[in-house]
């Protein structure tokens, strides 16, 4: 069954056009604020916490988030909320309270630059290079997914869709740099909230409320041979991997997703950390991820709930809602949001919903491009190709890097269109690089004895073990030798699902990095003096003077409230 196409009317196109006029207008209005490279790459460290907080959230609201979380909501039910309630929120609070003092206080301009200050050149080079390649590919994947969606839903030309989307993103970043990206991300945040909230509202109303949804989802669970509550209880069915559709058990979930993957992403990925580093004070930088945590904990209701409603309604022949199928006959869960937009939204609201969808893809792309131009200019170009040039020179290079970043994204978008499997393979390689990184930061920030050789060899062995683990295991129902695993000749273990395999790959990679970093650090000499490490390591950084802010501006108080609220959400939907 092909997906239903959307018929946009005049009012819908009017909303879409006005939105893009505003997006470019914000870039234009900010142009005169960009006087030097620090304004372009770091927003001159001048942005209030509520704005960096919402941008922190929005930079991550790319295609994966909205489309993928709704798809998982349909496939796995409320267990998808673990990505938020044990995954993202604790990691964001940890970043704000414990790690941000070192990122912001070190005056490093990027995450790789922190690694250079704390460890050495090779560790920075490894991180900068892999990160730069990763951002270009992620941005290309966003662009590809957006153009594909425009082609399928509206019948637009694929090439024209790629060109228009790329030009708009290029336009506002080129003009206003990071500030423009951040301000537009805040606009995108509100668009996403206002554009998708009616979907959750109408969907829930249609199924007859939460308790009716629960009853309908019991049938879905039983049909797939799980306990009746599997789709609506997040913690009841994780004792054994075979009890839930995700195929994960509590340990893999808590350690793999909750600890390694979430902390690894939220605490070390420059894409999000860059937003906090643009804040106007240390306190604002620390509050950035914590402010982001509050709307983040409610996002399951916005993005997962529509997926749960969709899977309940698809079974009901009277609902009229259908999901398209893939060429191999399986259900295409990625179309949950677009199909529901077409199903519930009349002209007018449809324009708003569709604009929101485009906005979420573009914010994902813009976040990657701004992170790319900074890492390229500061960590690669300035470090290895042209040190000691004028600030104007680097600002100029930043703009060139923005154009190149967008052009490379266009290239990778076409690459994705042609070689879907190679893209999967690349994403896998990045996962191998990222999984151990959190161990490096944890040891680097909290154990002063960690050496550059230790950090580098830890990272390399963590990445290598991730690859080996993936090469020797396989998710159930897949053939060995492909991108799914088992390509090292033998399959030592079969996981119930791909997700379980990912979580355990991360656990192995993190542990290897941790152990090797400690061992090599103890065997090598610390080349950095205590003075050099001041501000970079917990034990050598003076505690900030007693807080002078009111309680509602203190990171620790806000973080505590965020964790308490998340605990309540976990209990309410356990």
């Amino acid at each position: 069954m092909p997906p239903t196409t959307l018929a946009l009317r005049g009012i819908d196109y009017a909303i879409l056009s006005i939105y893009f006029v505003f997006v470019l207008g914000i870039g234009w209005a900010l142009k005169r604020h960009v006087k030097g490279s620090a304004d372009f790459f770091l927003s001159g460290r001048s942005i209030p916490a509520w704005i960096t907080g919402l941008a922190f959230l929005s930079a991550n609201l790319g295609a994966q988030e909205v489309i993928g979380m709704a798809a998982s909501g349909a496939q796995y039910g409320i267990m998808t909320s673990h990505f938020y309630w044990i995954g993202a929120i604790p990691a964001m609070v940890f970043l704000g309270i414990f790690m941000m003092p070192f990122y912001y206080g070190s005056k490093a301009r990027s995450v790789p630059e922190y690694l250079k200050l704390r460890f050495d050149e090779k560790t920075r080079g490894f991180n900068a290079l892999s990160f730069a390649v990763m951002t270009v590919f992620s941005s290309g994947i966003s662009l590809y997914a957006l153009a594909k969606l425009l082609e399928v839903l509206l019948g637009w030309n694929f090439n024209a869709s790629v060109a228009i989307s790329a030009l708009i993103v290029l336009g506002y970043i080129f003009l206003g740099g990071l500030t423009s990206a951040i301000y537009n991300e805040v606009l995108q945040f509100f668009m996403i909230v206002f554009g998708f909230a009616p979907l959750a509202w109408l969907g829930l109303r249609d199924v007859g409320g939460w308790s009716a949804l629960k009853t309908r989802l019991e049938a879905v669970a039983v049909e797939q041979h799980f306990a009746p509550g599997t789709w609506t209880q997040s913690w009841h069915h994780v004792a054994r991997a075979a009890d839930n559709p995700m195929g994960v058990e509590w340990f893999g979930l808590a350690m793999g997703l909750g600890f390694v993957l979430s902390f690894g992403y939220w605490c070390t990925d420059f894409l999000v950390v860059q937003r906090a580093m643009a804040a106007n004070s240390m306190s604002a930088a620390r509050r950035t991820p914590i402010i982001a945590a509050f709307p983040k904990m409610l996002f399951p209701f916005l993005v997962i709930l529509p997926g749960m409603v969709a899977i309940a309604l698809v079974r009901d022949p009277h609902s009229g809602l259908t999901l398209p199928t893939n060429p191999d006959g399986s259900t295409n869960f990625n179309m949950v949001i677009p199909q529901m937009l077409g199903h519930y939204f009349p002209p007018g609201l449809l324009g708003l919903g569709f604009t929101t969808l485009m906005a979420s893809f573009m914010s994902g792309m813009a976040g990657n491009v701004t992170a790319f131009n900074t890492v390229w200019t500061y960590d690669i170009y300035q470090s290895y190709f042209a040190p000691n040039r004028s600030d104007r020179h680097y600002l100029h290079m930043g703009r060139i890097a923005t154009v190149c970043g967008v052009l490379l994204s266009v290239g990778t978008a076409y690459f994705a269109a042609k070689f879907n499997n190679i893209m999967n393979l690349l994403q896998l390689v990045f996962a191998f690089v990222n999984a151990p990184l959190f161990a490096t930061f944890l040891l680097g920030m909290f154990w002063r004895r960690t050496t550059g050789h230790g950090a580098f060899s830890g990272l390399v062995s963590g990445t290598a073990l991730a690859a080996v683990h993936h090469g020797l295991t396989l998710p159930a129902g897949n053939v060995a030798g492909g991108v799914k695993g088992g390509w090292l000749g033998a399959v030592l273990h079969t996981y119930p699902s791909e997700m379980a395999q990912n979580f355990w790959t991360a656990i192995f990679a993190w542990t290897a990095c941790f152990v090797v970093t400690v061992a090599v650090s103890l065997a090598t000499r610390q080349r950095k003096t205590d003075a050099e490490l001041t501000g970079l390591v917990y034990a050598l950084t003076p505690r900030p003077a007693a807080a002078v802010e009111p309680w509602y501006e203190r990171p620790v108080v806000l973080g505590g409230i965020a964790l308490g609220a998340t605990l309540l959400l976990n209990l309410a939907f356990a």
Partner: protein
Amino acid sequence: MNFDLRLPLGMIFSLFGAMLAVYGLTSDPAIYARSLGLDVNLIWGLVLLAFGLCMLLLSLRAARARTRGRPNA
């Protein structure tokens, strides 16, 4: 930086809200069959309008405070 994001936020959401509300009042009721019979354009348009006007109000208040020479207000 004297660029108040609340101003463009207020402008765009007031505009979207007004557009949807007016469209909701003037459009053929038959199109609301799919939204469970609710005139969601009017309802959601008013929600957006209220949010947009709040943002505009906050931004105007801050601008007036700035001209009176009270920074950080």
